[in-house]
């Protein structure tokens, strides 16, 4: 295999893992984050029990080291993906690792302007659903997008860990050649590609923020 093809394939695998995980994390992290905000003490409908429960799951999810999470999820992964090798097999761990991370960022973003914005909505006679979907989320767009950008970059980092144990991608390449076969040049190029990908994600994130906020 030519070097170029090798890098190309690995790059694609990393992009694939990152993209799919980011999209799914965005949806579920947003939902979990909104629920955290709504039930928190300063939220729209404070509920101590529900918040404590959601918050505990989120904190536990965030505190499990990623490598251990992958191992813990092996049976689950085998069950829904059918294999524990390859980029798709990395998805469950990537997503489950990233959701709590993003959910916290969503909660913080919503809390930031929470009280004033929600009260403004209440004073118009808006329902709670309307307040969330038409006021809180649109007004927090910039923070929510910045949050998913940060999350996506963290996911790139996770993919390299996943790569080391068989998920493929640039992490796999760096590990396989650089560490196992002593090819420093491959490791360096793989690292440069990871950095380029991260910069690209940051750039896209910034562009979307710019596009969606008045300035």
């Amino acid at each position, binding site marked *: 295999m030519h070097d170029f093809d090798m890098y190309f394939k690995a790059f694609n695998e990393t992009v694939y893992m990152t993209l799919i995980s980011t999209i799914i994390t965005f949806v579920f992290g947003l939902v979990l984050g909104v629920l955290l905000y709504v039930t928190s003490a300063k939220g729209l409908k404070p509920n101590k029990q529900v918040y404590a429960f959601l918050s505990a799951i989120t904190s536990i999810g965030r505190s499990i080291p990623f490598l251990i999470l992958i191992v813990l999820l092996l049976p689950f992964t085998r069950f829904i993906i059918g294999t524990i090798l390859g980029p798709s097999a990395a998805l469950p761990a990537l997503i489950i690792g990233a959701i709590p991370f993003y959910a916290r960022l969503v909660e913080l973003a919503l809390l930031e302007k929470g009280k004033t914005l929600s009260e403004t909505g209440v004073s*118009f*006679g808006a329902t709670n659903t309307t307040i969330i979907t038409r006021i809180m989320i649109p007004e927090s767009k910039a923070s929510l997008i910045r949050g998913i950008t940060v999350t996506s970059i963290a996911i790139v980092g996770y993919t390299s860990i996943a790569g080391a144990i068989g998920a493929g991608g640039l992490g796999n390449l760096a590990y396989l050649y650089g560490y196992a076969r002593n090819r420093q040049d491959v490791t360096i190029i793989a690292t440069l590609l990871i950095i380029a990908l991260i910069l690209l994600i940051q750039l896209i994130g910034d562009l979307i923020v710019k596009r969606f906020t008045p300035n």
Partner: protein
Amino acid sequence: MITLKHVYKQFDISKKRHIKALNDVSLTIQDNTIHGIIGLSGAGKSTLIRTLNQLETHDEGEISVFGYQDIKRLNKESTRMLRRRMGMIFQSFNLLESKTVLNNILFPIRVQRKLHQADYQKAYDIINDVGLKGYASSYPHQLSGGQKQRVGIARALINDPEILLCDEPTSALDPLTTKQILALIKRLKHKHHLTVVLVTHDMHVIKAVCDEVTVMHEGMPVESGTIDNILFNPTHPITKELVQLIGFNMHDVAKKINKPGLVMSLKFPKHLTGESLISTCINKLDVEINILFANVTPNTEGIMLINVNGSEQNQVKPYLEKQGVVIKDA
């Protein structure tokens, strides 16, 4: 008319610490008036105004508005309907930063139903009315504080409310802009026959626009009345201090004066403002009157503090009272 009867509201800070934000509040706010609520920080003013649209639910007592006996007992849907009949403006304006001026103003309609062509027309009319012509497609961050509050006012009026609630609407603005915003509120009140409830800690604001005033202190209304009566006859120490701040310091003057004789406060009803009652009195009765203080209320009633000779007060008092002057001992 808004009526509060024995309203209580307590905040539980911890198991042991409770704050009585509203402590037996009974109050009537007449239709078509601008009713000011003033008091020191922490007096419970914000809590009071927020119970009126149930942003805060009261623990005890009754608040009746629009003929409902107690708005706390309305169901969710009726509470929303109630809120749509009241506009609210805020100290920090609370505009939606991601929306244009036009969309901010239309937003209260948008949360209820699809917009019609007529809604846009109405929004543009209000935009012109509050002095924001040409700013419909601007974003809030492009506006000055005064302009932002104009958007807030326009947004509060889009649903044709009968009541406008204002919590410190000018506290983030400079004195001149404050004056303009207050003038706007006053004009819109006349135009739309609004009942305005206005919370402030600034007595100048009260003097500039309010017909009626309630002074709050430690969760209780300690004094209520027309602005002129409050200025002429403040009874609570807090009220006395507040009226001094806007140049009605006759209580201070009365206390400091140690001339022999009697010190009296006079109030000249509007129709007497043009008359030279005091000089006529001096000439006719051949007495001496020493004027210690004089000022004019927002409704152009004259308030005066005079000092008369002890033996002459029996002449002066009946004479002035006969002319329609209100007199009290200072």
